């Protein structure tokens, strides 16, 4: 656990630091607005070098790399992520504000994927090579191959208002006049309406992967001897499948959870950017561009922690679900 943690933070740190580019410069130029929009303001360019040196000293950027890393780690141990370069806000505050949004988005996505892919996989496995199996396989592949950036842009253009149809809002988490004194039901509806498209877009390519995995896993189990035995004993096919086979083939699906969590931050970057959703992905992207070192480092760290939690959780779940482990313990 610990080496993994150190490794990740170190990599994150090194990459941010070794990359060229100076955050002080960015502050001087008035943020990223000048890059995209108009020109640099002539007046602001006046003798600012001294100002930048001052700013760098304030954030400890003028010390050597090892010292900076050590200082950062030390702060970490006291649970302080420091302050963002962009706006002096506490980095943890910014992350805490956005974490629930990303978690919500991704949890729904994971749920949707499992809800769709598992039954699909089961059906494919129990009716292998049938027409339905082949069609669903092909569809899954097609979905898998559609580039996310394309699908998202097309969705935004065609069904989110603008010139064509207005089925869903073009972004954001809640309506403009969202108010805290709405009824719970109204609030839920509003959030669901806003999240529907992002969740679907985030999930569609997972259908393929997981359903194929489920199918393969079930097929593997179906070939095992004890399944033949169960059939020979006269158990109904249905019972065989849903009681014995399913349980055993679900086991590997649990381990996938562990690999999903690190993708939490990266995976939503595109969706959050296109749909203006204030989550961690968007924060990460903006922070990288703004060279907001403390925030980027913090995000790497958070990602590391999430992954380790994921591994832990999936190990626990595994031991709960896997009868060999459970019975093994009982026998002892």
């Amino acid at each position, binding site marked *: 656990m610990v*080496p*993994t943690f150190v*490794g*990740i933070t170190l*990599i*994150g740190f090194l*990459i941010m630091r070794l*990359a*060229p*580019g100076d955050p002080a410069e960015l502050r001087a130029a008035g943020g990223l607005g000048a890059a995209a929009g108009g020109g640099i303001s002539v007046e602001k360019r006046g003798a600012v070098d001294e100002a930048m040196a001052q700013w760098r000293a304030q954030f400890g950027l003028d010390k050597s790399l090892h010292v900076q890393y050590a200082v950062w780690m030390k702060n970490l141990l006291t649970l302080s992520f420091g302050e963002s370069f962009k706006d002096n806000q506490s980095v943890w505050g910014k992350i805490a504000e956005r974490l629930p949004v990303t978690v919500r988005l991704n949890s729904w*996505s994971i749920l949707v994927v499992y809800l769709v892919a598992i039954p699909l996989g089961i059906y494919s496995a129990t009716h292998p*090579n049938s027409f339905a199996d082949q069609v669903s396989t*092909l569809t899954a*592949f*097609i979905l*898998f*191959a*559609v*580039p*996310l*950036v*394309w699908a998202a*842009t*097309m969705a935004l*253009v065609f069904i989110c208002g*603008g*010139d064509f149809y207005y089925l869903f809002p073009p972004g954001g988490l809640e309506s403009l006049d969202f108010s805290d004194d709405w009824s719970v039901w109204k609030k839920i509806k509003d959030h669901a309406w806003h999240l529907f498209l992002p969740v679907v877009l*985030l999930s569609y*390519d*997972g259908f*393929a*992967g*997981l359903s*194929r*995995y489920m199918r*393969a*896993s079930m*097929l*593997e189990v179906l*070939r095992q001897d004890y399944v033949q035995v169960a059939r020979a004993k006269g158990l109904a096919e249905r019972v065989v499948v849903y009681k014995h086979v399913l349980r055993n083939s679900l086991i590997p699906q649990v381990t996938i959870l562990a*690999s999903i969590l*690190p*993708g939490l*931050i*990266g*995976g939503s*970057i*595109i969706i959050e*950017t296109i749909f203006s959703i204030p989550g961690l992905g968007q924060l*990460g*992207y903006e922070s*990288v*561009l703004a060279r907001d070192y403390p925030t*980027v480092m913090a*995000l*790497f760290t958070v*990602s590391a922690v999430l*992954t*380790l939690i994921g*591994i832990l959780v999936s190990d626990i779940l595994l031991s709960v679900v896997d009868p060999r482990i459970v019975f093994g313990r009982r026998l002892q």
Partner: protein
Amino acid sequence: MSRNESSPASFESAEFETATVAVESAGGLWSDVWRRFKRNPIALTGFYVVSILAFMALFADFLANDIPYYSVYKGKSYFPIFRSYVVGVKLGRWPAELLNVDFKKLEGAKSIFPPIPYRPSSISLLEPLEPPSAKHWFGTDKLGRDIMAGMIHGSRISLSIGFVAVGIAVVIGIILGAIAGYFGAWVDLVISRVFEIMLSIPTFFLLITVAALLPPSIFLTMAIIGMTSWVGIARFTRNEFLRIRNLDYVTSAIALGVTDRKVMFKHILPNALAPVIVSVVLGIAGAILVESALSFLGIGVPAELVTWGSILHEASGATFAWWLAVFPGAAIFLTVLAYYLVGEGLREVLDPRLRGLR
């Protein structure tokens, strides 16, 4: 859960256990594989698509170019496209009358042009954002550049990114996996930790960080995708090595004193390749998707280069110009799909357990 952005080869199929595959005919393992592969019509289609793309990539200069194959001018005949290659490697020069000339406007010249008589970079400010027409089959972008030419030349980038990225991933993955699986014990422990770290890194985030901060270059992008996606391959390799290492023929080779390196790469590796191959094919598809995501965000691609992803990037700024989105989007989609189908087909052929159910 987004495959599109996560590490290309981290998608793992059901765990592989290839026994050394029994050969059905005398033609050797691979011709046997090919014969069985051919029986799957879907996978075969995928294979043909991949081949067409490869052809397009290789011969892009002959398919879309604004200088002709052959031209007769002032009584002399020339082969401009070939000549451009020659001049490019500094082995020749342009004759004075052909220096920087626009063959289409050259008076008195009779030329045979390639089917798409444009270069992807030829700017024509008078024809911006034109929908598909007889003149420009796929329309033009905001600087009047022909989209079809861009698509054809862009296939080079997309495919090479796929190959190079995965190539790097394969090299790293196989080496690390082999070492871990062969030596076992604490070596395996350390290397497995490294796997864990790599898996825990938010890859797409890392990609963006590096690609956005460093000067854009296709090679850099390829290298980074490769360096973040080798874990799947490494794990397969490791598992295979762990299993095969204990087989009789290996233990006897070691007992006979064959060096470790020879054992690993001459005796074990050839038999451990099956799952790797499938990963490679899927990995190429994944790399193409990642690259399209990066170009879409506008990072990783140098300004002058036209790639499928960069055309898509333009599309987001001109949403009425559907041809900017449809064609590259479709191209990426078809390419990725083709590779997946080939990969699936290969897996079905190489995995002995599934074969039993056909």
